[in-house]
């Protein structure tokens, strides 16, 4: 099976004042295309750092990170931005929609950056909105949407460009359990129907149950892996 993400001996240490804080200590694992994978672990275990490095938002101090066949350490800042735009979708814990744009405009944001024509953008976003239950909310701004609705818009934005990989950092952390379950349904459905690889971080056992594979982290190291279904 095609390898979507390859991590080999990845290290990352943050400097705070004069103190070194090791965030990742020799991470090794491979994510195949089409996986629905959870990075599990307590706060400070390195989940977010790992997602940031895989998404090219941050750089590893040592080791190799390959995404969609490209070695991220060899890419410039601009090249990493282009890789994110073309191959990755992001869903953040705090939704992170652009507050001055409507739900529709937020969802089509990355398509516009890719230069997709208006008609195709409209069809794409309308289809996604229908698929994930956002029809009728197109013209609302983020402040006029609930947390669950905002996170769905964020998922729509992440999926709009048909990315090979979606990285979601604790996507359900700010949602109640029913809304979180509904969002996971959406993500799972998109994973199945579009074949998109999902990697999401969580420390919620209910969310972990939904992943087909769970990689457990602790103190910046992989401490276990489970295949669930």
């Amino acid at each position, binding site marked *: 099976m095609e390898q979507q993400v390859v991590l080999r001996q990845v290290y990352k240490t*943050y400097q*705070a004042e004069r103190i070194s*804080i090791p*965030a990742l200590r020799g991470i090794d694992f491979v994510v195949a295309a089409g996986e629905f994978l959870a990075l599990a672990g307590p706060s400070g275990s390195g989940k*977010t*750092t790992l997602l*940031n490095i895989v*998404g090219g*938002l*941050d750089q590893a101090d040592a080791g190799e990170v390959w995404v969609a066949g490209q070695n991220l350490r060899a890419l410039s*800042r*601009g090249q990493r*931005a*282009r890789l*994110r*735009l*073309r191959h990755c979708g*992001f869903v*953040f814990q705090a939704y*992170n929609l*652009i*507050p*001055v*744009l409507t739900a529709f*405009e937020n969802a089509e*944001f*990355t398509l*516009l*950056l890719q*230069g997709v024509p*208006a008609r195709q953008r409209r069809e794409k976003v309308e289809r996604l909105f229908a698929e994930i239950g956002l029809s009728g909310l197109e013209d609302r701004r983020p402040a006029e949407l609930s947390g669950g609705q905002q996170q769905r818009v964020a998922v729509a*934005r992440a999926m709009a460009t048909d990315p090979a990989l979606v990285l979601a*950092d604790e996507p359900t952390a700010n949602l109640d359990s029913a809304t979180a379950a509904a969002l996971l349904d959406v993500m799972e459905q998109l994973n199945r129907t579009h074949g998109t690889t999902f990697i999401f971080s969580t420390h919620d056992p209910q969310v972990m149950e939904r992943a087909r594979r769970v990689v457990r982290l602790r103190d910046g190291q992989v401490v276990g892996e489970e295949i669930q279904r």
Partner: protein
Amino acid sequence: MERLSLLGTIAWRNLWRHPRRTVLTALGLGLGLALLLISIGLGDGGHAQMIENGVRLGSGHVVVQARGYQESRAQDLLLPQYIAATVQETLADGRGAGQPTHVSPRLLASGLLSSAAHAAGVTVIGVAPQAERAVSLIPGKIIEGTYLSDAGHPGIVIGEELARKLAVRIGSRVVLMTQALRQPQTGTPGNIHSALFRVSGIFRTGLRDVDAYVVHLPLPQVQELLGVPAYITQVAVFLSHDSATLPVARRLRQVLASEDIEVLTWPEALRELAQFVWLDDAFNYVMLAVILAMVGLGLLNTMLMAVLERRYELGVCAALGLQPGQLAAIVLYESLALTVLGVGIGLLLGLGGHWYFATTGLDLRWFTEIDLSTAGTVFDPILYSRLSLSRLLWSVAVVFLMAVVLAVYPALQAAHTRLPDALRVL
């Protein structure tokens, strides 16, 4: 194109996230521009009035005289009178002038004017009355009697201050004593001559040097008195607009190149006035630069705040794939949009103020009662704004340029949004 439009949309909507801040900043920018326009309008209007009065009291926009007269002021440096006709013909063909001109021949000399009670040294100006009426300030400043005319009994026109000094009034008899000039052809020194005149007009210009010393007489009388019947000191050329000064001077220099003649523009002939205008302009520019700097700091502050408070949001945009240049473009667009708003307000206020001062004028007597004469000319007490299209466009361009330059730093800050720090991930 659509990408630019998206960035523009984001920028425009961002502005209205804090409407009060946006309006206040735009208002500050607008007031700065309005002040710039009103100040330039009043400054240019005041200078135009000063120059107009200066050239009408002096020797015109362009003066043609014997070479060396400007430096030496020697009375016997004369021109043949036909030069006036040559100048008239040259300007009549329209080349170099492009607008209506007036030409006035003059003969200047110094003399002693005596009344029954007193005597005073004077500058005698022999003029062609009809031509002088069209160009000089003095015919319009007559407060008693009438100005000279080509026909009728020759009178003498004197200033109010001189009339007071000599204790004369309209109809009083005065005696003008001068030394006949050295004949240009023979070089023979002239004898002392005197002639009796009746005061026919008294003028008040407000400029003491003119009101106390200048007298106007018909040109033929002065030529006869000085013994130079076919000679004049200078030909004063008056234009309907100052902008034609240089082309007219160039044209006359070409035509009169073979003569021993100097052709001077008013800044060359009235150096004190030209320097005053230059200095006043320079001072105004410094003041305006200070005002613009203050307004610019307000704009810079707003844009920096907009970037710093949206650090997280810019981080999200960067995470989604926006390039550093595109992040900078959002900030530049915001700054430009804010500037367009400010310029709109500024044009509204500035042109409104200009229109008021151009039609009603600024009455300086509200502020001061002091003598309004300086640098060899007089201020009109009511200042009228004059704003050319080029000055208007220049002002708007300066404000835009300032906004763009000041937006560079916040835009660079946005472009340098560092991931993942901007997302506060650790």
